[in-house]
């Protein structure tokens, strides 16, 4: 049944020399080749973590002491912690409030609001920061960081929470009401607990983005571990101090993962039955309609209006001079090229693991999945630092080639492909493969005609999200891009760090235009994926 195994023993029937199709028989641990491939990919995805561990180990205690236990690290720790601790709760509150208004109340125009609240994801955080710094030049510090990152990342909570709310069984709320709870009590005691998983997942995503973000904070002179690592990189390439900061940052990420998995416990989203979906009863807002509309309008103006306004303002201020055709086209084509290659490679690499997770769940698969979960939380700067050092010293053949950059993209965005592929493969149960085999199709043919075909839409969805990530990726691209390569993000960054905001505007516009359809896709998908 394995599609990677060639079907051996195709000799004449009855012949004594026929051999067993060793390994081609069904096994619980999954086809050997897929397992081996998945282990290789998982090992590869552990590169950044391994690099940090080895570098920290090699640095020796004295260096660690000197470079980690110093006031600067304390400052960064304070900044980073403050950023996470302030931004994440605000994002959670905004995300849940927005989702509840849109999904559970009779809000006027809630279909449009539903999309508008997800739309800020189409604006890269560093473009948002650029707009806000244009609006308020003195913006900076923790509060500047909190403002811009909240406006950029609250949709990461909003989208999953809205998806769960829209699918939540209204019978639960009705039971709550029948047990004598008022509407607010129903919200806090029945609805909110069910949103816990979605909100915690969103909060984790927000936290990881906060830890990894470089451009948005560098633009407003706010230092976090990631900006400090980049500063060190600019001064020393890959010096010990950069590595030490990276190891502290990685520790941070691991603690976050641990925290999230503790909140989650063993709980999973309740699996929704196939029955017709009941339409939840929506709460009449009455006079609250006005503040509700005002709240969402304000949020949208801040998160969408400000960045769009300033991009357009700089476009107008720059006039025709900023449309430097060849450079713009060059960056656009390279962005598209890398986006497509990265999306393809990431999807291909994610496939074996997704396949194992769905078709052969077991202890090995669980470990592999966990590995992917950990390695994907590594910030771009750490991934890039690891790959640049490893390739320059150990794999000169690929050093400064497109391969390394694409590999970095695969490391960074694997979960996007994985999550979608898993959902897609779940739509293609192995019974269908077997049915095709029983209808005379060889395992490989059956796999291609059934499993691959059925998971293709989900794979394409995942690839689109990887593409979105690559278009807006800055740090890894800055460090790893081959000589002469520019992307929209790096060119935007080159212009805006020279405070040529007008020159940067066309690149900002192109990034937003490329991201918008992918963001819509993400939004649409989340509605379908809820409950899986």
């Amino acid at each position: 049944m394995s599609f990677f195994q060639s079907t051996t023993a195709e000799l004449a029937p009855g012949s004594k020399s026929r051999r067993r199709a060793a390994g081609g028989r069904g096994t619980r641990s999954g086809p050997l080749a897929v397992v081996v491939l998945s282990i290789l990919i998982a090992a590869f995805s552990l590169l950044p973590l391994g690099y940090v561990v080895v570098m920290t180990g090699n640095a020796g205690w004295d260096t660690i002491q000197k470079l980690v236990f110093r006031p600067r690290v304390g400052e960064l720790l304070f900044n980073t912690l403050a950023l996470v601790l302030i931004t994440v709760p605000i994002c959670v509150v905004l995300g849940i409030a927005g989702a509840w208004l849109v999904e559970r109340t009779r809000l006027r125009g809630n279909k449009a609001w539903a999309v508008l609240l997800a739309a800020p994801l189409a604006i890269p955080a560093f473009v948002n920061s650029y707009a806000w710094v244009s609006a308020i030049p003195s913006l900076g510090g923790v509060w500047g960081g909190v403002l811009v990152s909240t406006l950029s990342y609250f949709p990461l909570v909003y989208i999953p929470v809205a998806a769960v709310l829209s699918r939540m069984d209204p019978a639960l709320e009705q039971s709550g009401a029948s047990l004598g709870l008022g509407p607010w009590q129903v919200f806090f005691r029945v609805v909110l607990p069910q949103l816990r998983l979605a909100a915690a997942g969103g909060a984790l995503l927000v936290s990881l983005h906060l830890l990894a973000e470089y451009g948005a904070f560098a633009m407003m002179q706010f230092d976090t571990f990631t900006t400090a690592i980049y500063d060190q990189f600019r001064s020393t390439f890959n010096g010990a101090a950069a590595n030490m900061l990276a190891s502290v940052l990685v520790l941070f990420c691991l603690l976050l993962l641990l925290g999230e998995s503790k909140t989650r416990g063993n709980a999973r989203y309740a699996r929704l039955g196939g029955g017709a979906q009941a339409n939840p009863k929506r709460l009449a807002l009455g006079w609250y309609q006005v503040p509700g509309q005002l709240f969402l309008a304000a949020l949208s103006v801040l998160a969408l209006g400000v960045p769009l306004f300033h991009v357009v303002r700089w476009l107008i201020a720059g006039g025709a001079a900023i449309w430097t055709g060849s450079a713009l086209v060059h960056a656009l084509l390279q962005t598209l090229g890398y986006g497509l290659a990265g999306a393809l490679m990431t999807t291909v690499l994610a496939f074996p693991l997704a396949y194992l997770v769905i078709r052969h769940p077991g202890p090995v698969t669980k470990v592999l999945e966990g590995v992917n979960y950990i390695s994907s939380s590594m910030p771009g700067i750490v991934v890039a630092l690891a790959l640049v050092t490893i390739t320059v010293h150990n794999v000169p053949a690929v050093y400064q080639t497109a391969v390394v950059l694409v590999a970095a993209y695969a490391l960074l965005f694997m979960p996007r492909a994985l999550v979608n592929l898993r959902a897609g493969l779940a739509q293609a149960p192995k019974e269908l493969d077997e049915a095709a085999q029983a209808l005379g199709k060889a395992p490989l043919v059956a796999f291609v005609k059934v499993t691959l075909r059925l998971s293709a839409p989900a794979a394409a969805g995942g690839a689109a999200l990887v593409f979105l990530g690559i278009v807006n990726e800055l740090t890894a691209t800055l460090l790893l891009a081959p000589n002469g390569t520019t992307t929209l993000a790096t060119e935007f960054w080159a212009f805006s760090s020279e405070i040529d905001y007008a020159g940067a505007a066309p690149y900002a516009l192109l990034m937003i235009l490329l991201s918008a359809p992918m963001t819509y896709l993400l939004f649409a998908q989340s509605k379908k994926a809820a409950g899986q």
Partner: protein
Amino acid sequence: MTPTIRRAAKAPTAKPAFIPDPGHVTDHLLVSGARKSFGGTEVLKGVDLTVAQGRTTAIVGASGSGKTTLLRLIAGFEAADAGTISLAGVEVAGPAAWVPAHKRSVGYVAQDGALFPHLSVGQNIEFGLPVRGRAAAARVGELLEMVSMDPSYARRRPSQLSGGQQQRVALARALARRPQLMLLDEPFSALDAGLRVATRRTVSQTLSDAGVTTILVTHDQAEALSFADQVAVMRDGKLAQIGSPFVVYTRPSDRATAEFLGDAVILEAWMEGSLALCSLGGIPVRRPPVQGRVHLMLRPEQIRITEGGSIRGRVVDTDYFGPETTVRIQLAPIAVDPGKPVDPHQPVGGEVINIRHWNAMLARPGTELSLKVVGEGVVFPWSE
């Protein structure tokens, strides 16, 4: 049932993987000594099964008994750890042989039909056909009619069909390649009661018309008994009994099989010669395995409420089901013949039994009834 054998003659058929040698083939499918473990748990513990050409066998057992695993071994989705499987006289799995699923000429219908959701009904049926175009379209219409569906359904999507229709399409799809053997894995279990009976009848009729050797796996004993020529009872990785539906129902080989295949009244009894003495009196037993203390098994329908019967019982309570009522009856202890010496192991009787009766009014709690037993009982050796 006389199977009409319509073998490859008309439309071009799938490439036959094996040319059966009709000269010596009597048993179409032969499984011997099949064993299979998953992760240290032995699921099949040595299974032997033969199925004759054109006949229908039901493998019935509780969930986890290994029946689906056996079916998957036969289909070629899994390989046995030991034992051999031969199909039409050719070994397809064994120490020296392995033929993959797609070369076994086996049709397979899964529990939920496993229709390809991205293909129309017609495309699903065509999937395994080696021909395309007009010939295929004609064959699709023919197959849909064979499963009592209008050919116009070919254009529909699987999601537009009811569960019963999906199962019939799955059958048509599996029949398209004219398989030598049809495997049905709980194909009716997902259907609701009314649809289940109708679909089962259509499928059964279609298969017997086509003369295809069939194996049905089910956990539903009524389905097994009504569908098959031969019933194989699977328990704990082994086949506990194989025989005709009548035989396995009326003469189960052990108590567990008896209870699995239908409601059973089990009484303590004392075997003397060919009579089992119990609370219902002396019941004739054919070929009793032992003498002395035994369990006696009767089917509830063998116990009738009559006027003037010799056995007395008092109604404890009843469960009303409309067309019939389950009546719980407290029996009197076994009458002891004062003239005979009493064996200390002899049972005392006086059990409470469940029987069925059409008249609910007759059986008010506390009512004294007289009973009689028709037919023979089956006894099993005593066990605590």
